[in-house]
């Protein structure tokens, strides 16, 4: 008990130094936590992917389309429960900075394959009934202040022109990992419009979403679908939704790696700062430790004192950072909602924060403890006065 008393009082004896160190640790661990959240957010699509959904796209590139006629052929395979399709629309709302994902899809099947997009029955009915209608996620609607019945115009990039849509439904995510910033409208609306302007681009889809009856049939269906279109003009590449999302993320892998490296650099920097603080503290207290050794205390007690003090400081910093993480993540998530629609504080992030604090505390205490233990009592006592 006395050792713990000394340990805690030592930790906060120099209030300014301890306060500044704790603040530094809090900011560093907060930065570490936010960077880890960015990485988690990047992979949120992978985590949210269903094991019973497959994506079929053109084997050459996602930029190439597939004929609409594949729909029926895919649907006929054993193990296929439902097929939907869509295209990336890439429309701009007023300005490019207002970026959000927008797709045209076959609405009935798409909503059935994605039960995590929760729509009120009346809104779903209104959306299905209106060919110019669209549904959007709750966060996207809130961000732009849209109301049901509002007309929203997107400027086409892949499909030129101004496209008017009417908001018919606002979906909510069933899970916290469901993206609520997306915009879906009728594939038929797009197809019929471009039939008039560029008929050669009509009846083409960018991807097929395939729901399988059981997840264990996914591999068989993948093989069967791709085999069907082998040696055709548009060969297919089918994979699980998870693999597809991972492939998508892999295209920005260097950025993710850079963020990961930065997050560890932050930890190394703060480790050096805490190690410096602990080295200074131990140097100042070398006389106290010599007195304790004189009185009969051993290396074990000195180790507990130095490691304990270091851990008290880093864990206090960690606790402060964890308290700050919630408002900071909310603010961060709000500002970067378009790029990171799912910005949530996971238990894993908080565990990593605590682990980082323990690691910093222990490593920072290692060298000072070694020095304090090695120094002779007589040498330690000479440093007093």
């Amino acid at each position: 008990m006395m050792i713990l008393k000394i340990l805690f009082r030592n930790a906060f004896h120099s209030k300014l130094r301890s306060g500044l160190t704790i603040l530094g640790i809090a900011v560093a661990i907060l930065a570490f936590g936010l960077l880890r959240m960015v990485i988690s957010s990047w992979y949120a699509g992978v985590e949210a992917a269903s094991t019973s959904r497959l994506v079929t796209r053109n084997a050459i590139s996602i930029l190439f389309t597939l004929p609409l006629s594949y729909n029926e052929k895919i649907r006929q395979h054993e193990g296929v429960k439902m097929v939907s399709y869509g295209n990336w629309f890439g429309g701009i709302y007023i300005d490019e900075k207002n970026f959000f994902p927008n797709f045209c899809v076959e609405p009935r099947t798409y909503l059935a394959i994605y039960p995590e997009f929760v729509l009120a029955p009346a809104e779903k009915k209104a959306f299905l009934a209106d060919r110019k209608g669209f549904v959007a996620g709750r966060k996207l609607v809130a961000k732009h202040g849209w109301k049901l019945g509002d007309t929203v115009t997107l400027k086409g990039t892949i499909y030129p022109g101004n496209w008017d849509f009417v908001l018919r439904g606002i979906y909510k995510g069933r899970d916290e990992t469901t993206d609520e910033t997306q915009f879906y409208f009728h594939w038929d609306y797009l197809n019929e419009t471009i039939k008039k302007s560029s008929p050669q681009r009509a009846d083409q889809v960018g991807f097929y979403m395939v729901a399988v009856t059981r997840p264990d049939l996914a591999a068989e269906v993948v093989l069967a679908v791709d085999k069907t279109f082998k040696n055709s003009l548009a060969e297919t590449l089918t994979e699980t939704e998870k693999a597809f999302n991972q492939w998508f993320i892999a295209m920005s892998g260097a950025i993710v790696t850079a963020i990961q490296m930065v997050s560890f650099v932050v930890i190394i920097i703060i480790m050096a700062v805490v190690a410096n603080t602990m080295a200074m503290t131990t140097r100042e207290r070398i006389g106290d430790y010599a007195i304790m050794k004189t009185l009969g205390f051993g290396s074990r007690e000195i180790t507990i004192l130095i490691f304990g003090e270091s851990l008290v400081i880093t864990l206090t910093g960690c606790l402060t950072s964890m308290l700050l993480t919630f408002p900071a993540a909310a603010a961060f998530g709000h500002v970067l909602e378009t790029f990171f629609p799912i910005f949530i504080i996971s238990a894993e992030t908080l565990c990593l924060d605590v682990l980082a604090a323990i690691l910093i505390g222990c490593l920072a205490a290692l060298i000072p403890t070694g020095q304090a233990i090695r120094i002779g009592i007589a040498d330690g006592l000479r440093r007093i006065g």
Partner: protein
Amino acid sequence: MAEQKQNIVEIRHLFKSYRRGSLVVPVLFDITFDIAAGEFLALMGPSGSGKTTLLNLLAGIDKADAGGIRVDGLDITTFSETELAHWRANHVGFIFQFYNLIPVLKAVENLELPLHLTSLSRRERREHAEMALRMMGLDHRMDHYPQELSGGEQQRVAIARAIVTDPTILVADEPTGDLDRVSAEEILAMMERLNGEMGKTIVMVTHDPRAAQRAKILRHLDKGYLTNDDSQNPL
């Protein structure tokens, strides 16, 4: 016929040197003397004569290069670091020039600290600590931190800490070196009382002739040699 006192400390052919890089600096040469139980011995000598080194050796906080030190029948030169720490906790009380109290502990807690190495209960530790502080006339300063006490009061707390475990010997390194004359007199009187009334064996290193005057036996060290074998204090 005078009663022959039993020796509590026996030092035989003690040698000690320090290393300063590649340089070996001899500090003590062939020191041999005894300290009887209940003695009050003062070690005097100029700076660098080896007084503190000798005190450290007989208190078990440093190790000799050669020679033997027996305290209360135990040859402490054969002890390991852990054994020495255990021995110090039970047999030696320390009084230093700069008091050496733990700054983050109150006066009473500073006294409880060495008692944590004993088998006393929490309540007993507190009782012993309070009693020792009362003996030093510091019952009104129990809950004060060292920095809230005067130099004399801090040294009285340090003396209370030294005696709270009822050690075999008390070692004091310049106990009045950082005090004004009045406080120094108080501390020396207190040490005299500990020796006279409680029979504590005290070994004190000092520069101060006034402090040395209080000791019963005076020994001089010069350049690492004991220069007199006279056990009477001529001061």
